[in-house]
């Protein structure tokens, strides 16, 4: 599959006046996970994160942990996940979400090539901070993979500027201090961080972590260019929902964001 470049696509969505909706699916979670991906795109997702399951996902809460361990128990690995994408019919960018050891073990260049061969054009590595990521950023960029960096509510101003400068595709703002997972409301820190990021960069700013429903998506997107919804959709899938039902949830969020 030929990939869609991340940043130009997201800028086009932003210029059309819409908020960017990013969804997430754990790669290899059940035989129908690519159908889930296609349903998400059909329902209006502008970009989909493909979670590469890992044995020790320290930034993830119980839902993504469960999705990851289930996928691993079903035999998923980066090669099988990326191979399965070959037949996917989607016209939006796909971005891998992977913990660094998976990338390190495969080797930067090899992993980046595996991504581009599968049409994946970006990668988010949540446990690779600025000090450790220069090598990966260079190898990823050389292969045509946008290295997306994360910013946190506690990141001081000078680091935030550096993250904005070095992140490609978009800047991923972490809404709250904590791990991924559904929450009762959007953290107050979300709007503050989104505003700080928007003041520093023209790259798309997308906020994630703890966004569970359409109303929360609208609230979290207020100061940003878009939002990521992950755990709430994976919860549905883990509880037995089919791709169409997950698509319905994505569509509800899409409608709310489009007002």
């Amino acid at each position, binding site marked *: 599959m030929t990939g869609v470049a991340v940043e130009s696509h997201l800028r086009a969505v932003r210029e059309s006046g819409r908020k960017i909706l990013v969804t997430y699916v754990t790669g290899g979670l059940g035989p129908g996970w690519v159908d889930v991906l296609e349903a998400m795109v059909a329902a209006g997702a502008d970009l989909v994160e493909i979670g590469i399951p890992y044995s020790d996902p*320290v930034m993830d*809460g119980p839902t993504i942990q469960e999705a990851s*361990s289930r996928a691993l128990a079903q035999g998923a690995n980066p090669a099988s996940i990326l191979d399965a994408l070959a037949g996917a019919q989607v016209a939006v960018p796909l971005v891998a979400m992977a913990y660094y*050891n998976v990338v390190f*073990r495969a080797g930067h260049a090899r992993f980046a090539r595996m991504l581009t061969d599968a049409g994946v054009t970006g990668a988010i590595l949540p446990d690779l*901070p600025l000090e450790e990521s220069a090598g990966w950023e260079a190898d990823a960029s050389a292969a045509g993979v946008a290295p997306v960096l994360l910013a*946190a509510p506690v990141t001081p101003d000078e680091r935030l500027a550096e993250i904005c400068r070095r992140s490609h595709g978009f800047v991923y703002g972490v809404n709250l201090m904590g791990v991924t997972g559904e929450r009762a409301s959007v953290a107050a820190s979300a709007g503050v961080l989104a505003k700080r990021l928007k003041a520093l960069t023209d790259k798309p700013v997308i906020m994630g972590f703890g966004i569970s429903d359409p109303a929360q998506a609208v609230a979290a997107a207020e100061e940003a260019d878009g939002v990521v919804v992950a755990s709430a959709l994976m919860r549905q899938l883990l509880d037995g929902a089919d791709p169409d039902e997950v698509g319905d949830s994505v569509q509800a969020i899409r409608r709310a964001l489009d007002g």
Partner: protein
Amino acid sequence: MDDPGPEGRFGEFGGRYIPESLVPACLELEKAFRTAWSDPAYRKRLDDLLRDYAGRPTPVTDAARLSEALGVRVMLKREDLTHTGSHKINNVLGQGLLTLEMGKTRMVAETGAGQHGVASATAAALFGLECVVYMGEVDTERQALNVFRMQLLGAEVRPVRSGSRTLKDAVNEALRDWVATVETTHYCLGSVMGPHPYPWLVRELQSVVGNEAREQCRILLGGADPDLVVACVGGGSNAAGTFAGFVGTGAALVGVEAAGGSAIGHGIPGVLHGMRSYLLQDEWGQILEAESISAGLDYPGIGPEHAYLAARGRARYTSASDAEVLDALQLLSRTEGIIPALEPAHALAWLVGATRRGEVEAGSTVLLTLSGRGDKDAETVMGLLS
């Protein structure tokens, strides 16, 4: 052993592979420790606590009957005689003081065998800090007594049900807690592992073991250093503290891992829990589960400085099997009247085997760190021997 610098590197190993949310806290901790470690007032407070509260210096016991049995002269560094019964107290007193210095009111810790959990709960009680200890569910079962001890000390023990439900998963859960609570909470990491500054910080706090032992050996050996220095290695804190005292001498250094958790023997370089080191992992980088009768050595990685010492050949790492460990534990109990914890029984088990195989020359002098006492393992050992 060297200061790993602001990037926390021991050669290619170490580093700080953590989510952005935790970077400011690790930078703050490094700064606080650098300041404290060169501050005579902090050092005095710590030294006073180590002496008056923990019972330091611990003795070195010239183990005559064991020596006779093995044909080498064995000297035991008696960390089993500290308050709480293991070397873990050295680290938590230092980190407890740092927690106060940083103005934090809560600490979280991970524990395997429970020794670090008990030590953390102890320090928290002493300093008036709230304490939550994460412990793999498997370990809460095999170390039920230590769970109760932590609760008596006022700590909350949270069983971890994810992954292999052992030490590695307890670290994951402590990190998840810390990401959400970092403004008020210090992560009191128990070994020479994790993101910078922990491997260095914990080694410095444990170096008291090796520094004392070196001077004590010189008294016993008429000014000489031992030929061989041996310690068990899970993450590797008692070994790092011991080696710190001898790395500048001519002593050969040997670290002994559990056969089922031998990161240097069977591991591959990778990144876990914030550090680059040797890890048990599969071809895709998924972390494998370590397996040992000793909960304290059930860890699929090893501290990055050990990886570095191994890579440059300054220390040698080997392993002992569960059966050898049980034999060694009984040997020490019967020859010296000292029941060791299962962890240091690994160090002894290797020494017993090495002397029998002729790998250690007869008459050699050996310093072995007895990192903890065996009370916590009595029930496990009873089950294994019956």
